[in-house]
Every structure is written in structure tokens, then in C-alpha cells.
């Protein structure tokens, strides 16, 4: 149908670069953008305050003789044992700090891409959906990991260093695994939670409302349910209660609620799985590569 005309073709001189870490530039950009947000650096720095207080407690616990004036009546508080690490990883203040930070630096991870239609830029490049989601998850993993896993492991090392012996390690040889498992579960939960919230709206302000609304509403629901049924299972409605219950199971300490910890573990795992399916579906909703 067309007329014949001359056309030249120059062979491409580029090269295919096989990059197994395609997700990393996405995470790196997300982390950089988060640090660039107003008040984020300040908030992030203050979020390490609990870890620093716990470090001081470890120091004092090893120097009880020197700190008798403080330690009076507070022996139990100064005991460094599995419960000590569990209490750090289940601090309400820590969860609140994570929520604040992630509402500043994580709420827009998917929402902003949807709003700016940036997803098409990613998927017109040699990138899979898994790379994309892993890249976005990497931002949350980085921040929650540096606030949970990293300080908890450092506290453990600090305890060994201050003790000057392996007695603590020999008393609780499984403790480091508990720290790793519990931290990873918390990181996984918050990653699923924030990404799910971020995928539900194109507006980051709505996403922030969803994050705080769901978190605190779950607490309210637990209170209402307990007031009506007087059942410890009411704790299953609460996000923080479930995380505390699972942590108790991991650290082999008495659970705060009178029901098997694995129920909460199953619930948290189910939530993470459902969140993954929803996020995957939402990203697919903007027509991308499988």
C-alpha cells in the first residue's frame, strides 16, 4: 500500500546488562526521597531513643554496684533476659514511631506512583512486577529494619560485650534466633500494612488516614469486644496486641493474653498474605507485566 522509499538502519551498539538487583534503584530512590521529606530526619533520629535507653539499661545492669542508688527497687526492670528484648521489640512507642515515619516516607510509595502514573515508566523498562514491589517494600524494610532488627541485634551484642563472658549466650542460646524471627515478622507485617494502605488510594493524605485509622481502630475494636465478651480472644482484633502475643511466643515468655500465641501468628501471617494479594492485584490494575 505504501510507496517505496529508502530507509537506513544503524545497528544498535548498546549492550544488555543483566541486573539481578533491579529492585535496588527503586528502594534507593524511595529511601532518598523519604530522607528529603520535612521532619523525617528528626523523627528518624528520635526513633532511636528507646534503643538508646535500652542500651543504658544494659550498661547499668552490668554495673549494678556502681548504680545502687538508681537500682533500688528496680532490679526487675534492670534484668536483661529474653523478656527484655521482647519488651523492646513490642514497645508501643516504637510502633508509633514506625507509623509516623512510614506515614511521612512510605505512604506515597505506591499512591504517588498511581497518582503520577509513574508505573508506566517502570514497566516500559526491563523490570518485572516482583522487582517493582520488592523495590517499594525495600524502603519500608530499610526503615523498620533499622528500628527493630538492627538495634535489637546491637543490644544483644552490647550485652555480651558488657558482660565480658558468654554466660548470657549459653543461658539463652536460642535468643538471637528469636530476635531475628521476631524482628523479621514485625518488619514483614509493617511492610505489608504500609504497602497495602498505599495501594488503596492515589492520595497520600488518605493513605496516612488509613494507616493511623486502621491501627488505632483495631485497638478500639479490641476494647469494645473485651467490654462485651470479656474474652482474651478480643486481643485478636488489635494489631499491637497480636504482635505482642506473637513476640511472647518467639521469646518463650508468658503471653500477655490468655490464648495460644500461634493464633496471633496465623492471623498476622494471613494478613500479610492477603495484603500481598491485594497489592499485587492493585498494581496489576494499572496494566503491568506479570
Amino acid at each position: 500500500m505504501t510507496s517505496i522509499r529508502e530507509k537506513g538502519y544503524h545497528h544498535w551498539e548498546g549492550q544488555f546488562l543483566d541486573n539481578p538487583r533491579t529492585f535496588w534503584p527503586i528502594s534507593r530512590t524511595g529511601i532518598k526521597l523519604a530522607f528529603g521529606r520535612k521532619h523525617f530526619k528528626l523523627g528518624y533520629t528520635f526513633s532511636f531513643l528507646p534503643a538508646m535507653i535500652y542500651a543504658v539499661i544494659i550498661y547499668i545492669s552490668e554495673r549494678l554496684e556502681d548504680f545502687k542508688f538508681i537500682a533500688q527497687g528496680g532490679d526487675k526492670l534492670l534484668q536483661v533476659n529474653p523478656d527484655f528484648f521482647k519488651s523492646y521489640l513490642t514497645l508501643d512507642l516504637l510502633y508509633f514511631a514506625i507509623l509516623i515515619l512510614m506515614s511521612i516516607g512510605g505512604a506515597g510509595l505506591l499512591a504517588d506512583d498511581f497518582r503520577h502514573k509513574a508505573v508506566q515508566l517502570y514497566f516500559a523498562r526491563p523490570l518485572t512486577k516482583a522487582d517493582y514491589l520488592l523495590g517499594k517494600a525495600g524502603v519500608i524494610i530499610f526503615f523498620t529494619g533499622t528500628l527493630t532488627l538492627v538495634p535489637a541485634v546491637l543490644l544483644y551484642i552490647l550485652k555480651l560485650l558488657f558482660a565480658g563472658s558468654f554466660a548470657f549466650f549459653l543461658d539463652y542460646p536460642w535468643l538471637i534466633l528469636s530476635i531475628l524471627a521476631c524482628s523479621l515478622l514485625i518488619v514483614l507485617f509493617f511492610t505489608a500494612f504500609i504497602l497495602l494502605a498505599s495501594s488503596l488510594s492515589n492520595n497520600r493524605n488518605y493513605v496516612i488516614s488509613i494507616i493511623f485509622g486502621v491501627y488505632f481502630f483495631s485497638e478500639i475494636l479490641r476494647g469494645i469486644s473485651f467490654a462485651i465478651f470479656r474474652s482474651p480472644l478480643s486481643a485478636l482484633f488489635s494489631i499491637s496486641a497480636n504482635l505482642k502475643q506473637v513476640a511472647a511466643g518467639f521469646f518463650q515468655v508468658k503471653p500477655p493474653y490468655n490464648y495460644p500465641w500461634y493464633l496471633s501468628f496465623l492471623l498476622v501471617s494471613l494478613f500479610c498474605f492477603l495484603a500481598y494479594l491485594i497489592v499485587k492485584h492493585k498494581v496489576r490494575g494499572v496494566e503491568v507485566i506479570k
Partner: protein
Amino acid sequence: MTAIIEARNLSRWYGNVLGISEINLEINPGITALLGPNGAGKSTFMKILTGQLKANIGEARIFGEKVWNNRRIFSRLGFCPEDDAFYEDLSGLEFLSGLLSLYGFSQAESRQKASQALDLVELADVADRQVRSYSRGMRQRIKIAQAIAHDPEVLILDEPLSGLDPLSKRRIIKLIKEFKNAGKTIVISSHILPEVEALTSEIVLIHQGKIIARGDIYFIRDLIDTHPHMIRIKSAQYRQLATTMAGEDYLLKMAFEPEDQAVVFETHDRDRFFNRLNELLLSSPLAIDEITSPDDNLQAVFDYLVGK
């Protein structure tokens, strides 16, 4: 030679709404323009070519390889979307470097290639400014920069000239032509026809999800020769010219435009008309200021083909 881009029986629906239907197309190096009104199916076709949409029926191939789920292909392809798609808080250089990292380039390489691309689109002086502070033209240019930064062989540009001021348009047109001269394959979509005329004569007309014509604009014009050609001649002696031409049997209609001192002829045989006009000009003291073909443009061709 195998075509760079091949579409075989491509069809895509959005529920009950037809996106494109049975598109068969081969695209070779050079600039090919997809033309059609909004909703014609241009963007759907481009989304299939860039792997963002899967065709319900048929397949798209680039360099002989299937596009869908073939991430290798995307290293050789650059896509400029119609919508703004930016991280507003990043500088132009950071935005481009970040996207280049997705190809597997190191940070240093990414920054170098990003700088080169920004230089090409004449944004080097604002490379460190946040994208949010960019004007409409700058945003359009950085969108093109992200498409060309990795030096792709195939460029898919969705409405790259929309919303640009004349100066920016000229810059982008120049840039696209440079890519054409470098032997690349460029597919460009537009519904603003004069812009496309400035870029290429190789056009594909899409309407209601189907290709209604393709080829050289003048070739298409010849295909629809049943419709008379319009020739507008501006001359101080336009009435004398009309009188002389009136007797020609291939002339169908004449209309005067006294305010412009012009006469518009309609003929079904353009060649004979121009031969006769040449004779007249040589044999008489007629002075002609301007000869134009008002319907010899893409809008006219498009209107004829869709039966407007």
C-alpha cells in the same frame, strides 16, 4: 528486511469497550506517525508495544521477539508517555539517573548518561533543579530525555508535542528528526495534525480501533482521488485567471475570496490543472503570489477517510 515492529492481528478490549481491533502493521526505521482522534486506539496500541498491556488476540513483536513479558526487549526501547510521570521532589538529573539504574547501569554511568540526555534536550542548565519547578515545556522535554537516555533503537512517543510552546516544539521536532537520521525507529502519536506534518509523511490513520489507511500522506491523497483536490491561488489578477481556466473540462468548481484576492479551484485531475497553469504563466503576464492546497493536509485526508 524484517520490520522492526510487527503487529499481527492485534485486538484489545476494555470490558465491552473496544480499544483496538485486528491491527496488522509493520513499522520500519524512520518516523511513523499514528494519527487519530482521542479514543481512536493510539495509546492502546502504544501500551501494547511497550509491554504494559496484553493484547486479547494477536501479538506484537519488536526485532522479531514477542513484547509481552519479554523484559530484554525494553532495553532497546524508549517510551515517552502522554501523561506527566515524575518524582517531583527529585532533580532532573536524579530522576533520570534513577530510571537509568533500572537498566543495570552503575551510578556513575547512570549520571553520565543522564547528563548527556539532559544536554540533548537542552535542560543541562536546570539539571539540578527539582522537577516540580519545571515549566510545561521542560517537563515534556525531560519526559523525552528519560525515553532517549539509554540510547534505545525504538522510540515510542505518545503525544510528545502536546502543550508545548512553538520554540519547544521546534526543539523537540529537531531532536526527533536527529533520531530518525541516526537510523532509529520512531513511532509517534498525535491528534494535532500540522505537528505531524512537520515531522513525517509516513502516517498510519487509526479510527475506532482500526487502521483506516497507511502510507505516505500524498500517496493516501492520491488514493482518494475520487474526491476533488482543492487548489487555492492568490493573485492580483485572480478573476482573470478564473476566466481563463473556466473552460477546462477537469475543473469542477471555482470560488472567489475577494478579501484575499484569491480563487479556489476544485479539480479531479490535479496534474492536468497544473500543466495548464504552467502554460498560462509562461504565455501571459499573470503574476501569482501563492499556490496552496487547502485540503492537501492530514486533517483533510483524515476527514475524507472517516467519511466526514
